[in-house]
């Protein structure tokens, strides 16, 4: 009984409430005429679509650098990879994998610079990360206009230069992962095998990384930097590694997101992309300084379930679209909850 109580407090009431909320949504769905299998199919697709972006937060949390509100830095690297791959005219698997390949060096470079900055501002990482992300996005908005992209599928038709705000991936690699070995069951349910396999592989890679010597050192740095230092580990270096890894995953994450979405969105679109990812991982039970693969999986699933189900179910029940409000309140409420919780590192 007591154990249950501590487990509940550890997990936190907000998460439990949200969990039951999601369960209630699924239970209520058939009664208001929403097909559960269709909804589940949607949730699975979104789960795979967003998962890697959420996964990208893990290393920095583990290394004690906080929630990576600067995720857009990685996203920008991914966008560069995606647009360059299109510019080169690569399509299909070559296009997608090429985009990933091209984005990696940018991600490493950006992540490295971004990590150096974060190492100088220990203790205030989160606010600064947020604004670094914002300025990166707006700065690149200028570059999208100026860089000499020329593929007619990407640039504004009337001026012949400057990338469009939204570029369709049709004919390139739209849903290439989603459709890979996808299994259709019934009329409404599709199991996106390729997408989930890719997400699974990414999660596995992260899991292995955290079990390596470097990953172990990183976790120790986040758990107790002084302990790690006394063990001969440079916390600055580990933090730097964590930022680079996070940025790389951010870049890959956005490419996976876009192939599922079918469009590349540029300019202001990536501005707030870190927030839903942060909310998801916290929803999964992570704290500001501890996160695991389970947190990522559970959190992404719950969060995407809310996003998918609330518009349908709540609209039918209340006859009004309150999903946006629910989404804002839940996701930001979750972040505030995590930020105001006494940090659990015992000293």
């Amino acid at each position: 009984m007591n154990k249950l109580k501590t487990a509940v407090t550890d997990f936190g009431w907000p998460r439990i409430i949200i969990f039951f909320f999601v369960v209630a949504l699924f239970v209520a769905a058939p009664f208001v005429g929403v097909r559960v299998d269709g909804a589940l199919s949607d949730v699975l697709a979104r789960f795979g679509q967003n998962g890697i972006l959420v996964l990208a937060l893990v290393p920095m949390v583990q290394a004690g650098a906080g929630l990576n509100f600067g995720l857009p830095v990685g996203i920008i690297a991914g966008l560069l990879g995606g647009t360059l791959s299109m510019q080169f005219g690569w399509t299909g698997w070559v296009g997608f994998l090429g985009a990933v390949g091209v984005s990696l060096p940018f991600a490493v470079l950006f992540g490295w610079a971004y990590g150096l900055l974060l190492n100088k501002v220990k203790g205030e990482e989160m606010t600064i990360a947020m604004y670094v992300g914002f300025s990166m996005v707006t700065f690149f908005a200028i570059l999208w206009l100026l860089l000499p992209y020329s593929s007619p599928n990407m640039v504004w038709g009337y001026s012949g230069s400057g990338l469009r705000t939204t570029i369709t991936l049709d004919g390139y690699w739209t849903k290439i992962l989603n459709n890979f070995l996808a299994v259709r069951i019934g009329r409404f349910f599709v199991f996106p095998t390729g997408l989930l396999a890719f997400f699974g592989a990414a999660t596995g890679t992260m899991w292995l990384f955290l079990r390596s010597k470097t990953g172990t050192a990183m976790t120790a740095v986040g758990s107790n930097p002084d302990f790690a230092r006394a063990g001969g580990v440079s916390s600055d270096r580990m933090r730097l590694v964590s930022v680079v890894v996070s940025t790389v995953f951010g870049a890959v994450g956005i490419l996976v997101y876009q192939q599922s979405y079918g469009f590349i969105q540029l300019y202001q679109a990536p501005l707030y992309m870190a927030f839903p990812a942060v909310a998801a991982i916290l929803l999964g039970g992570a704290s500001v300084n501890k996160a695991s693969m389970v947190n990522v999986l559970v959190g992404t699933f719950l969060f995407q379930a809310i996003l998918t189900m609330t518009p349908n179910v709540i609209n039918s029940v209340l006859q009004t679209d309150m999903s946006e409000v629910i989404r804002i309140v839940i996701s930001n409420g979750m972040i505030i909850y995590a930020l105001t919780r006494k940090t659990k590192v015992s000293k």
Partner: protein
Amino acid sequence: MPDDTPLLSLEGITKDFYGTTVLRDVSFALRRGEILGLVGENGAGKTTLMRILFGMPVIAETGGFGGTVRIDGQPASFRNPFDALDAGIGMVHQEFSLIPGFTTTENIMLNREPSRRNVAVDLFGPRMATLDRPAMTARATKAIERLGVELHPDTLVSEMPVGHKQFTEIAREIDRDNVKLLVLDEPTAVLAESEAEILLASLRRLAAQGIAIIFISHRLHEVTAVADRVVVLRDGQLVKDTSAKGVEVREIAAWMVGREVDANARVRSDRKYGGPALEVEHLWVDMPGETVRDVSFTVREGEIFGIGGLAGQGKLGIPNGIMGLFAAGGTVRLHGKHVELDAPRAALDAGMAFVSEDRRGVGLLLDESLDWNIAFAAMQVKGAYLKRWLGGLFSLRDEKAMRALAEQYIELLEIKCTGHRQKAKELSGGNQQKVCLAKAFALEPNLLFVSEPTRGIDVGAKKLVLDNLRRYNRDEGTTIVMVSSELEELRAICDRVAIVDEGRIAGILPPEAPLADFGLLMAGERAAEASA
């Protein structure tokens, strides 16, 4: 001031924390205008006594205390420090509690600012009153004058020399109209000799104005110089209450550390040492609160070398500096090879290991399991407990080997736990200490630093830890440098004991040397006759 009722009298003060008696039947009295020197080793009960006097909440939370505190003959019981302040007792702490960006005046008057009321006061409460700056300056100047020191009322604290900060603190306490008793805890610790002298002169001035002073210091010559009376505490008991006239520093030191004849010291003739293992020359370490200024010593192969001294004198800085945890300089050689400072990794690679005094802060990953805690350093430094995959392309934690290692040490050191997966924070202090030892042993060091190995652990665990150290030294031939505040412990297991005072080694003594010699070294009296 001839007055029969003493200003402060403590009668039969007794206090225990969870069954451990820290004060037993302490009684003494203090008259107006009298300066009382309160001396004792760390843990003698000085701090607890002052906490009782000030009504610190921690005392009530741990079951209150026995005996009576009387002010002007009236029993007084303060519920919090503010009550004590209202009753006219001021305290100057060892650490400064000053606002750096405020001026002398603003700090002296902090939260006691004279103010002028205005309309907003009626509307929104007294905090809307505007400060009366001229009155503030006037009062601060008056307090400074009472001290008889040179302090400009408009200097920012952040731009002051250390001594002036200390004076500002004292001025703050004596600004109160009703101040009768002032307690100063090691006020000269941070001061240069010349500054300390000015301070002592100010204290005499204040005493002449009728303020009673309790002066806590380990610098015994200062105590004899300024105090009218000396009270010595040892192990929670009052061992001496005497007039300071004609008292020798050496006598006080002897009272402080214990009996002159001691049976505990063991003579060890069977010990054999090799050549120099660790040579330290002109080491300085920038560790807050434990600054090492200039330390040189040599440890011989196979020796257990003790480092003692009072808290804050720098003994802890020595291992922390050598291990690269704090900025340090000087020369350190291990087996003749130069060891890079400011680089923990270099120290570890050289074959040294360190059991930190800050068990929870530095020693352990509290939120991780025991196998992590024990294997981590060995994994990072030596690449042990890793399993290679794909022909060494990448390697992962070898959880099995880690588990075996953890279980081996759990058995060897008798660590009481539910298993190797238990989190370090769930263990008791003694068992946590054993985990720290296991972590160091797992590195298989050729020189082991152990810092305060028995701090905060119970008697049984203490013995186990010390026995293990001794055994490790004997069986593996590992040289051990042990830093401890417990002189008894150092004398019991070390081959030589160095005493650190004010960031320097005051002397190195054999463990069987007379206790008074140790006491003198701790009191900053460099004993000429003490020799290694």
